[in-house]
């Protein structure tokens, strides 16, 4: 074939590259790879369904945990009929309130992690690494020492209003987020500045926390340490409802922006070229993910690693397409936390180890294992 150009004629046998109509959608003709792709997307849907089933199995198994022996068939019956009389009351008001707390905290921290990792273009971004947890711990200690608040509702040394601790923890997490955003605004809204600001803020709050522990009396110190271990035993229906409301609205926004996040996966400039307001999405995503994790952490205490483990396992299984990554991370975050809490209730039975300790102990090695599996030779 001869390619005619304004600058002369050149012979070429690249018939293939003659150019094509980019507006032609090949209507009518079968496009093989499009059909393959549709099948592939269906397969991902199926995997999600499978993960949901595993979650339900985990819920049922976890509902067996407790001093009273209740048979599996009874548990399933109580769960399906929402029966909360008698034994049903034990299942729902003692065990399920905790399990649902685990589901909400696990999915919330995981979805916050997914979005932070995407918008900050950093695989280590999570509510924990960006200082939201240490700010919450600082806020809680502040309340315990200076506002004379108890560490939690279940605390034996609880003095005035126990919610003061939670509210103070929440406000300080927001303060940390605000500081990160302000630092970012002062420089430029890039992913690196946000991550660096987060790490700096985190270190400052950690130092502040140490200082306050130094000031604290023995009983205050005990309270602070008790608070710091994330504990799902604190779960109540009213707090679960509040967390659920925040989780639902934030997740809905994240899911709505899934294609924007997909575009950001291809790089900042490419995303902008595709019409995405990257700066705006970065700030909004950061604020929403922080509020969500702050609500969870300030109530339950620090639960490390879920924001890393959930998203990374999900990414390994299903890839970075946020249409699937967001829902799968939510499901996996819930599963991981239910399992971790189950382990904490069983290993030293009858005493219960707070889930925060379990996730910290198991999370690190598990994360290293993932790292080696993914990047190792």
């Amino acid at each position, binding site marked *: 074939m001869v390619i005619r150009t304004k600058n002369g004629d050149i012979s070429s046998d690249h018939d293939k590259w003659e150019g094509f109509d980019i507006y032609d959608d*090949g209507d009518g003709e079968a496009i093989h790879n499009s059909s393959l*792709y549709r099948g592939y997307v269906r397969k991902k849907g199926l995997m999600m369904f499978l993960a949901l089933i595993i979650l339900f199995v985990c819920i049922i198994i976890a509902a067996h945990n407790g001093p009273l022996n209740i048979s599996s068939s009874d548990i399933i019956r109580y769960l399906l009929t929402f029966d909360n009389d008698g034994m049903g009351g034990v299942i729902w008001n003692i065990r399920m309130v905790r399990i649902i707390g685990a589901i909400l905290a696990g999915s919330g921290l995981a979805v916050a992690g997914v979005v932070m990792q995407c918008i900050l273009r950093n695989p280590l971004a999570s509510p924990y690494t960006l200082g939201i947890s240490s700010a919450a711990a600082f806020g809680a200690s502040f309340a315990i020492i200076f506002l004379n608040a108890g560490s939690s509702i279940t605390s034996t040394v609880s003095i005035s209003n126990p919610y003061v601790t939670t509210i103070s923890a929440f406000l300080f997490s927001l303060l940390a987020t605000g500081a990160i955003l302000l630092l970012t605004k002062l420089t430029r809204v890039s992913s690196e500045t946000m991550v660096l600001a987060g790490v700096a803020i985190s270190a400052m709050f950690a130092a502040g926390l140490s200082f306050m522990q130094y000031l604290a009396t023995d009983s205050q110190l005990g309270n602070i340490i008790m608070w710091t271990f994330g504990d799902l035993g604190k779960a109540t229906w009213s707090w679960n409802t509040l967390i659920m409301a925040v989780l639902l609205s934030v997740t809905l926004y994240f899911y709505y922006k899934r294609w924007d996040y997909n575009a950001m996966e291809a790089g900042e400039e490419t995303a902008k070229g595709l019409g995405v307001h990257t700066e705006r999405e970065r700030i909004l995503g950061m604020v929403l993910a922080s509020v969500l994790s702050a609500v969870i952490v300030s109530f339950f205490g620090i639960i490390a690693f879920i924001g890393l483990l959930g998203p990374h396992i999900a990414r390994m299984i299903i890839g970075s397409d946020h249409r699937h990554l967001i829902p799968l991370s939510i499901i996996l975050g819930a599963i991981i936390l239910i399992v971790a809490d189950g382990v904490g209730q069983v290993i030293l039975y009858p005493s219960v180890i707070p889930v925060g300790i379990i996730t910290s102990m198991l999370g690190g090695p598990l994360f290293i294992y993932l790292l080696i599996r993914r990047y190792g030779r």
Partner: protein
Amino acid sequence: MTFFQVNGVEFSYKSTKVLDDVTFSIEKNEVTSILGPNGVGKTTLMKCINKILMPDMGSVLIEGSELHEMSRRDIAKNIGYVSQRGEMSRMTVFDSVLLGRKPHFEWEVTDRDIRLAGRVIHLMGLDDLALKYVNEISGGEYQLVQIARVLVQQPKVILLDEPTNSLDLPNQHMIMHLIRNIAIRNHIAAIMTIHDLNLAIRHSDKFIMMREGTIYATGDHSIITPQNIRAVFNIDAFVEKVKGIPVVIPI
């Protein structure tokens, strides 16, 4: 009416002026190559054109409408951009190409979007890679994926920042042929930066030579002269014609 017009664009990073009074126009069906040394402002110019960077001064008109008054998304419908550095994430090739439909759909990709992406992937010979993750393909293959994405975007002007980077010889020529023939066939324009002068000369209709953040010369291949090359790149070169096409041979 000119198809695409860049008027007096100026841009500074902090206090250093990078672009100074850049003015040029291009027509549809044309491929334009921006030539100039490293750091002269080629990438910056491309980013100013589609508002990835906001120019301090000047305007960009496409078919008479001011681009900088459009929303980001409308700009994306008009201008496609293949960046010099794209990130390779854990998304499939198919999804990465499908992403080009982003400015065109509201809530979710449609069946037509999937057909469009599938067709371009096929025509670019990427079928075998379609369901592979882009972080598991080669750099050159990803370059082709990025070009497929911008074609699926159906812009009126395609900006390509060093599109032949990391491509082998046949693929370099394939992409250059493809871009030119796509431009002609679809009545759109392409603007690219490219460091391989001979490749640029062979496959472009028009050249913009940049020096010190501004345009030194524009025109067809008649501006490819030893004097201009000396002025812009600060090296001496012969320019010989082979089959009517200038070939630059640095001394």
